[in-house]
């Protein structure tokens, strides 16, 4: 508890400093209609005041959400965002809610499993009825729920080597060792089984529950060509950029960075696995109403566009497209065009099955 407060930074006072540092942020905030300040930032129209405690792991992403969300929120809505940073795990959330001693109000999930588990165990604050009504049309499918909204999802995508001036598209090409001969690299994770099923022609929306036998059979097909299973997401980037590997699976941000650096790699978004992180409010949060307002504010397309410009990741508002250059838009895992091709990772299924699937996967990987 003291630990969190020790690292807190108060943003009401930091706005001016930050504004000087980043002229763009000020312009954006300043261009908002003057009447907005008089209106409530909560969708129910009633005024809000006081503070809200947001928890994140900090770092460069922490600074980005301060700039894209917290500072403009404080300026417009008059509620101070206290950003506490540190590390946490799922067990702590349960402890907070059970003890009723909730140290912060709002945060984002860290793994695919946290959101479904949190909902199941009643750890998340339920949003009021009709909370999303006004903006639900602009949100990507599945990006909002009665407990939260997408924070900044990322995707598992295909990275391929452009050393031989080839272009690959989709997982079927990944499996096509005749047209694209050479070694492949996949993540040492049973998540690869979902990719195998997509390659085998299973439609993205019928993926779960995973047909494990079919997935392993499809993996068997490719196994002679999979020379390595990576444990660090930089490995497939290095591997394909040097031509050592024809293609690999990795996280979208790594490929975009490598492409910007002029490395010889290409990206295919077809059949991307979208890992949806969720912004949630803890059950029993002391400033729940302010947290609701902040969560609502974070869905604004212009703010999400701002976050996208800084980090390459953003939330689920499909209207960000209007506020971004095509160059930025085409790098986003949540760009409407990419979401349409992606399959959202079913965190609930994985939470229930990971133990069994992981064991089978481990045995499959080392089997000769």
């Amino acid at each position, binding site marked *: 508890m003291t630990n969190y407060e020790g690292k807190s930074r108060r943003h009401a006072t930091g706005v001016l400093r930050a504004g000087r540092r980043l002229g763009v942020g000020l312009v954006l905030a300043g261009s908002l209609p003057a009447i907005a300040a008089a209106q409530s930032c909560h969708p129910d129209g009633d005024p809000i005041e006081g503070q809200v405690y947001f928890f994140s792991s900090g770092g460069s992403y922490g600074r980005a959400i301060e700039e894209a969300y917290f500072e403009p929120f404080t300026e417009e809505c008059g509620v101070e965002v206290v950003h506490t940073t540190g590390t946490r795990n799922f067990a702590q959330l349960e402890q907070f809610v059970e003890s009723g001693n909730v140290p912060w109000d709002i945060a984002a999930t860290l793994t695919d499993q946290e959101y479904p588990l949190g909902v199941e165990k009643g750890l998340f604050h339920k949003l009021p009825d009709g909370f999303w009504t006004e903006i639900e049309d602009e949100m990507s499918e599945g990006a909002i729920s009665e407990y939260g909204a997408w924070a900044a999802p990322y995707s598992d995508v295909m990275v391929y080597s452009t050393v031989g001036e080839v272009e690959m598209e989709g997982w079927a090409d990944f499996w096509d060792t005749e047209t694209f001969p050479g070694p492949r690299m996949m993540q040492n994770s049973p998540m690869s089984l979902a990719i195998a099923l997509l390659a085998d022609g299973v439609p993205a929306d019928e993926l779960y529950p995973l047909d494990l036998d079919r997935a392993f059979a499809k993996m068997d097909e490719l196994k002679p060509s999979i020379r390595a299973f990576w444990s660090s997401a930089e490995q497939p980037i290095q591997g394909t950029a040097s031509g050592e590997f024809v293609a690999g699976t990795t996280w979208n941000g790594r490929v975009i960075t490598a492409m910007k650096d002029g490395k010889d790699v290409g990206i295919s978004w077809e059949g991307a696995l979208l890992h949806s992180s969720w912004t949630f409010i803890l059950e029993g949060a002391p400033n729940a109403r302010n947290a609701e307002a902040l969560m609502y504010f974070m869905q604004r397309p212009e703010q999400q566009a701002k976050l996208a410009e800084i980090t390459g990741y953003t939330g689920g508002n499909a209207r960000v497209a209007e506020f971004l250059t095509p160059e930025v838009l085409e790098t986003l895992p949540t760009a409407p065009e990419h979401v349409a091709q992606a399959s959202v990772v079913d965190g609930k299924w994985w939470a229930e099955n990971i133990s069994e699937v992981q064991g089978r996967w481990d045995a499959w990987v*080392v089997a000769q």
Partner: protein
Amino acid sequence: MTQGADTYASKKAGPSISGRLFRRRASSGQVKALRYLLLAPAVVLTVLIVFVPLLMALGESVGFDDGWSLEAFRTVLTQSPYPIVLKNTFVIAGIVTFFALLLAAPAAAFIARQSSRTSGVLLALIVASLWISVLVKMFAWQVVLGRLGPLNDLLRFIGLTDAPISMLYTRGAVVISMVHFMIPHACILLVAAMRRVDWEIIIAASTLGAKAGLIFREAYWPQIRLSFIMTALIVFVLSSAFFVAPALLGGPGETMIGMQMKSDLSTRYDSGLPAATGILLTLSLILVSGIAVLMTGGSFRKATRELAK
């Protein structure tokens, strides 16, 4: 490593200092008590960070599926991937130990024969190489062994190959990087032993007309044999617990025990299986140590006494 440093240091410092300090005023019983007192911090620390966690792991490993059960051990011994992973671990550790000692021994023999000043400088240089983090070393090997890396360039330049060859994600890559990591450790331990070699025995043998091979076998080897086997043991133990090299440079066939334990812990949130794996690894290493001590031809007491000299 620490053991090596201790061994090396104990020649000059160690218990004898306390002996010298206290001998005059204290009775021999008091000296003995004081010696044990000096040992106390190390013992307490070892108990706290080695034995207590091991006992906890033991408890965890037999408390699988609630209630006492040897299920976790059965899984680790019979169910894939564990037997394969255990085999990988010991095979790779064995190969690494062989090559690390093969390459370290001549260097150590050379350093041990230099003046104490020169050998001090050389040893310091070896120790300096340990400043480079193991991660940096492994990533460096990724670059060196890559298709576009300097080694492939060299091979093509001298005309040995036409097209770049794939060296990464192979057992060779794992072994090379681990041998590279282990050589300094082995070297330091061996130098400590080789500096204690009594060369008058060797000169005597030579004066009496013994041939080089015989001198080595009868006069030199017996003097270093114990330390040599102990060094091999330490390198083997360190190698079998290695994680970074197989994770970053190995293919699926190089999955080692540390990787499997990490996977069990971080994706399955299961502590019973990794605990059982860890206990089995510890037991195997105790067994290997036992064999090593038997190989020295002496009892464990003799072995430790020799090392503490």
